């Protein structure tokens, strides 16, 4: 088969890019080795947050947040999105100083989405918070969504618009020539395209290596858990910490989704993850320090899925400096979910040869050289 653009990876980044490309008259094929949403796209914690993002990602995140509201029109589903203010807590004066510094930085850039909260405002937002918390930084418009529903909605929309989304088509090899790219799939067929998008998530390093443009994207297995329903306990406010690793999301159904950078060991080649319960025990200890009333909440499930990680924790979004026509969109390092709609747009812009509406200079693929 032939198309203007070949996209490796049927996760959210791949499908979002494909959707915007076909909306601008390009043809695209998406190659997915499993099914869309099998790993990080469908099994992340669902956080749709601007709060606490690396400063370099903030312009993209702010655009993306606007686009999340448009999902019923753009992908035919609200993706389960609902607002839950994200409050990053200062547990001591040192934390508070960091948050104030961040707030100052954002203000100087012209961003107003994160607001400082004093002791009183923190308790209004989250009445059960531990007494030691001194303040926080809050983004009232943050929320969460359903990652699997989002993944399926994006894949379905892509297909409806004429993108071929080929599930169970692993990319076996791919090569570049003067005329573009030739990609061989696990069924033995070869596909041709003028441009190639590497949106392979945890597998992005493997794909880039096939084209002699190695990227330092490595697989990780972010590990999360969810409690049973504890209605009212979170007061609808999602929480994060400043000096320690914990993220608590207040889902509309009353459960608490717990993440914050916990990892499990894995065997990447065989796609096995051994969920490390000691990590979840650590998270539980922290949770009880922050919200002692969570004591009797029951932990219902741990889970994990593969994600692509980069050492500097911001993604690669841009054209290869070694292989013209090869575009990378990967290494979101366990916080790409919120960025999906904006990334789809800017990716489509650069693949079509336009300059992106938001500068991508911080996400250059060659920044590690």
């Amino acid at each position, binding site marked *: 088969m032939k198309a203007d653009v070949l996209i490796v990876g049927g996760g959210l980044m791949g499908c979002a890019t494909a959707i915007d490309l076909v909306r601008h008259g390009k043809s695209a094929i998406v190659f997915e080795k499993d099914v869309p949403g099998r790993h990080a796209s469908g099994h992340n914690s669902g956080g749709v947050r601007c709060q606490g993002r690396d400063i370099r990602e903030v312009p993209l995140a702010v655009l993306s947040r606007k686009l999340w509201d448009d999902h019923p029109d753009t992908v035919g589903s609200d993706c389960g999105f609902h607002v839950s203010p994200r409050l990053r807590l200062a547990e001591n004066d040192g934390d508070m100083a960091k948050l104030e510094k961040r707030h100052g930085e954002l203000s100087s850039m012209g961003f107003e989405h994160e607001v400082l909260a004093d002791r009183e405002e923190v308790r209004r937002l989250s009445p059960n918070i531990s007494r030691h918390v001194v303040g926080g930084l809050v983004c009232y418009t943050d929320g969460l969504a359903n990652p699997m529903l989002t993944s399926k909605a994006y894949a379905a929309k892509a297909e409806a618009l004429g993108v071929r989304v080929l599930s169970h088509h692993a990319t076996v090899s791919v090569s570049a020539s003067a005329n573009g790219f030739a990609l061989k799939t696990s069924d033995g067929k070869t596909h041709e395209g003028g441009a190639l998008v590497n949106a392979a998530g945890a597998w992005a390093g493997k794909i880039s290596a096939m084209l002699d443009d190695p990227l330092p994207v490595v697989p990780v297995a972010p590990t999360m858990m969810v409690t049973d329903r504890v209605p009212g306990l979170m007061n609808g406010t999602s929480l994060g910490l400043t000096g320690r690793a914990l993220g608590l999301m207040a889902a509309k159904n009353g459960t608490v989704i717990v993440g914050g950078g916990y990892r499990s060991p894995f065997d990447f080649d065989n796609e096995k993850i051994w969920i490390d*319960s000691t990590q979840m025990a650590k998270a539980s200890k922290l949770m009880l320090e922050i919200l002692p009333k969570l004591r009797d909440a029951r932990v219902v*499930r741990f889970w994990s899925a593969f994600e692509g990680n980069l050492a500097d924790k911001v993604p690669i979004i841009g054209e290869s400096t070694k292989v013209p026509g090869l575009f990378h969109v990967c290494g979101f390092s366990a916080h790409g979910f919120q960025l999906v709609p904006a990334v789809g747009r800017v990716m489509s812009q650069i693949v079509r040869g336009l300059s992106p509406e938001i500068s991508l200079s911080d996400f250059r693929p060659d920044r590690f050289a």
Partner: protein
Amino acid sequence: MSRPMVETKPKHDVIVVGAGPAGLACSTELVGLGVSVAVVDEQGEPGGNIYRNVTHLSAQQRKVLGLDYTIGRELVEAFLAAAPDYLPRAHVWQAEATGNVCLSQNGKSRKLHAAYLVLSTGAMERPVPFPGWTLPGVMTCGGMSNLYKVSGLIPSDPVVLAGSGPLLWLVAEHLFVMGAPIAAILDTSTRKGAASAARHLPGALGRLGYMMKGLGMMAAVKRAAKENKTPIYRDVKNLRAEGGERLGKVRATSGTQDLCFDVATLLVHEGVIPETALLRQAGCAHRWNPVQRYWHADVAADGRTNLPSVFVAGDGAFVHGAKSAQLKGQRTALSIARELGRLSEVEFRSRVGSVSKELDKELRPRPFIDALYAPRGDLFHVADDTIVCRCEGVAAGRIREVARTGVVDPNEIKSIIRCGMGPCQGRMCGSAVLELAVEASGVAAEQIRALRQRPPIKPISLEELAAADLDVVSPRAGRADEETR
């Protein structure tokens, strides 16, 4: 109930999960061969579901439950005499492929380490949704049998039994003997089952005693039903439980006849399936059985799985009944003892022959029984408004709706509409979700990914998890230690 908790050594050769026939036989055999064993079981007493409370029966209960049940007593006594480290009232919430388990006992969680893990988690009754199945007053035949085994309690008001499978008839027999009033027995099996079972009959006849026992049980129920003027209806469909706060009426159809019973208790049973949650969570490979329509662990004759440290023994691998489970447990023990060097090759060979032979004999009638009691083709074709996922209140129609969009993987259905996302992780709705997805999409069940199970397979409180003693010991270090001893 007052047995003191045994102080568990930090390391065992083998951890056995489950103290039913397979776990008891396996651990007893292992201890006899000088292997150090920890046995973790959810119940307060050894015996599993089948031999529940077997050491504390009154003479009257023994008489009712019969010889098949009381032979469990020998098994339990041998287990108690062997005295492995026994951890009752403990549930394993995570099994690791390396042989370690995380368990909760007395509100505290900790990790046990061993070189081998035997999962003998047994079987459960196939959960089949129908309108009103969540009403108080609706329970399974197995649940009722646990009640009378433990406390001798039987219903004093009329009950209706509905379903298919040997346990339905066994419970009916017991209830008649104990004098419980039965308003009706509704047999939901089809003639098709009997027809396809017939071709397995020659093999089954090799185990004539077993077959005669089954026939004897059916005859006894028919006789008692006649004496008690209890009607037995065949080819029953459209079962429905009705009531406000609790069950008041049971409705069904038998052929063209509409049935209605005013009863407060309905006992249902649609066969038995392996309890696979822990097996799947550990990562044991599974296979689909098209006759009994369930996923079961893919094991060798000795219970060996795809994971080198993990064995599955008993009904948890495939439902073959108590006697087979016991033999499978023994068989697994012999293989593990050989691997641990406690049995020489010669000793192993001399012992394994008789166990395997007896097991073969025991398994001979199973294809007949499996075909005879195969789940009816339309068993799960419930109305759209029937609740399927009890934890999250998801109805059949919603599952069909999602499946028709092409999403047939129960893992994805779960993520999208929360069906199977509650504390039981689909233990109660998993079979139904799969069958509804098959019905709505036309995709074959074996083409669909089985529902994944995540730790903790039973919920634990956040406080317990925070305080859990889970320090990791490298399994490789454990193995090296083993070899130098």
